[in-house]
């Protein structure tokens, strides 16, 4: 799917993308881990068609009419939850938002009990965001509904990686052969893990960069280059992806101060100039201006951060549509 307006401008090896799959094999979307390159392309291609709906006067299609989707969010999130809600409503599904504030001190209902109680209302799909890695795997074992992972602990955030890939493809026409630099708190980031899996699966060259205290053990086994020098990472990059630094990381002595972090790793205009002239800057949000990214870069001409948000709805519509139409027998679970 090469757009004629953005042909690759150099002779780097470009692997022809495989044809997209005709359907998703799994009942759930728990992570990029379970998706083949063909399935990823199917989702991206379907998202293309979904994007056009946002440009119509009536931004709605009747496809999921009568279906109920529960947004079960155990972690606060405005951006992702709103994005899913808009996607669900554009497909005419009935949405139910359940926001649970959990305190580790107060032991309330277990996750399994909460989910089973919600299932009593017979939803078709549950979109789950939870602070524990593997929470959606637990629900997938216990529940009847299809589960979509909206972020589980430090593990994966598949729809984020999909919308990131969609955004990159929109600008670069392809993913294969691109140089992608991902900079930030690699250790705690589920966006990192999902993006690394997806980008390497579709043939991109990925370089990850962060403080030595925040590099996950054995990450190079996923096929990425690892460095602690951000200048090296962004050299000739086509895409620069910044990850959010959480302020509480300073408590764990991961780095001395935000000021030092910005000096050593922050994405400044000077650093961006080391990348290719048409490089794009991405961030899953919310941003800490002056920590992982300088304001001028965030608002600059190469930033596609707001597009990412817009694309999120189309990608999530594609995921909802493809999972809803999937095979329904238990054997496929």
């Amino acid at each position, binding site marked *: 799917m090469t757009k004629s307006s953005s042909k690759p401008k150099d002779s780097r090896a470009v692997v022809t993308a495989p044809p*997209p799959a005709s359907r998703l094999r799994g009942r759930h979307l728990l992570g990029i881990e379970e998706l083949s390159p063909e399935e990823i392309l199917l989702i991206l291609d379907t998202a293309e068609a979904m994007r056009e709906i946002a440009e119509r*006067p009536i931004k709605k*299609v009747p496809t999921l009419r009568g279906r109920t989707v529960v947004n079960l969010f155990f972690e606060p999130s405005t951006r992702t939850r709103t994005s899913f809600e808009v996607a669900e409503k554009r497909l005419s599904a009935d949405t139910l938002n359940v926001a649970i504030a959990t305190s580790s001190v107060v032991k309330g209902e277990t996750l399994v009990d909460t989910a089973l109680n919600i299932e009593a209302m017979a939803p078709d799909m549950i979109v789950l965001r939870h602070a524990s890695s593997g929470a959606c795997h637990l629900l997938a074992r216990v529940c009847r509904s299809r589960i979509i992972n909206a972020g589980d602990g430090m593990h994966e955030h598949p729809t984020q990686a999909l919308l990131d890939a969609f955004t990159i493809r929109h600008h670069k026409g392809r993913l294969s052969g691109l140089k992608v630099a991902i900079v930030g708190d690699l250790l705690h980031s589920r966006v990192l893990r999902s993006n690394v899996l997806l980008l390497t699966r579709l043939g991109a060259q990925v370089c990850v960069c962060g403080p030595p205290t925040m590099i996950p053990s054995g990450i190079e086994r996923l096929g990425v280059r690892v460095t602690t020098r951000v200048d090296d990472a962004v050299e000739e990059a086509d895409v620069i992806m910044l990850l959010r630094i959480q302020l509480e990381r300073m408590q764990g002595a991961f780095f001395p101060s935000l000021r030092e972090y910005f000096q050593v790793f922050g994405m400044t205009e000077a650093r961006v100039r080391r990348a290719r002239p048409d490089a794009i800057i991405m961030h899953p949000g919310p941003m800490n201006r002056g920590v992982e990214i300088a304001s001028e870069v965030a608002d600059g001409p190469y930033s596609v951060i707001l597009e990412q948000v817009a694309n999120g709805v189309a990608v999530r519509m594609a995921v909802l549509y493809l999972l809803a139409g999937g095979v329904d027998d238990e054997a496929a679970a």
Partner: protein
Amino acid sequence: MPVVMDADRIARTLTRIAHEIVERNRGLERLALVGIRSRGEHLAKRLADQLQAIDGRPVPTGALDITLYRDDLMRQPVGPQPLVRRTDVPFSIDDRVILLVDDVLYTGRTIRAALDALIDFGRPQSIQLVVLVDRGHRELPIKADYVGKNLPTSRRESVQVRLEEVDGHDEVVVEAEG
């Protein structure tokens, strides 16, 4: 595999339909063509060329993907899910006479879905239906305004329309189902 229309016949039929359109609408002023993906889209483009040849002015043409409006979508998934393609209607359909174009008219459900989709785009003055082949067996009260060929078939048969743009050559064949 009986060929019921060859390339020549298809071309003459489209020409005939183009003239009927001009005649019935007394001019092309508020007309626009919307072809149903995927083969309806190509037929619509051919008709647009024909109409322009007659009238001199270009006729706005768009393509409609009705996958998301089908009524059988989430029921019994049989085989692979249909791939959703982009809808591309780059003009306003308000107050226009829309010519909806499809290759084969059968149960009428595709047209029903297309009407639902069109209404979401705006409020046309009227909608007329153009089909290359009408094979009967309607399940909904849908009627074509312009028909290339009436082709009585049995339910066990299938009608295949092949077009140069997609299949490399033009023909309409009727196949007995295995």
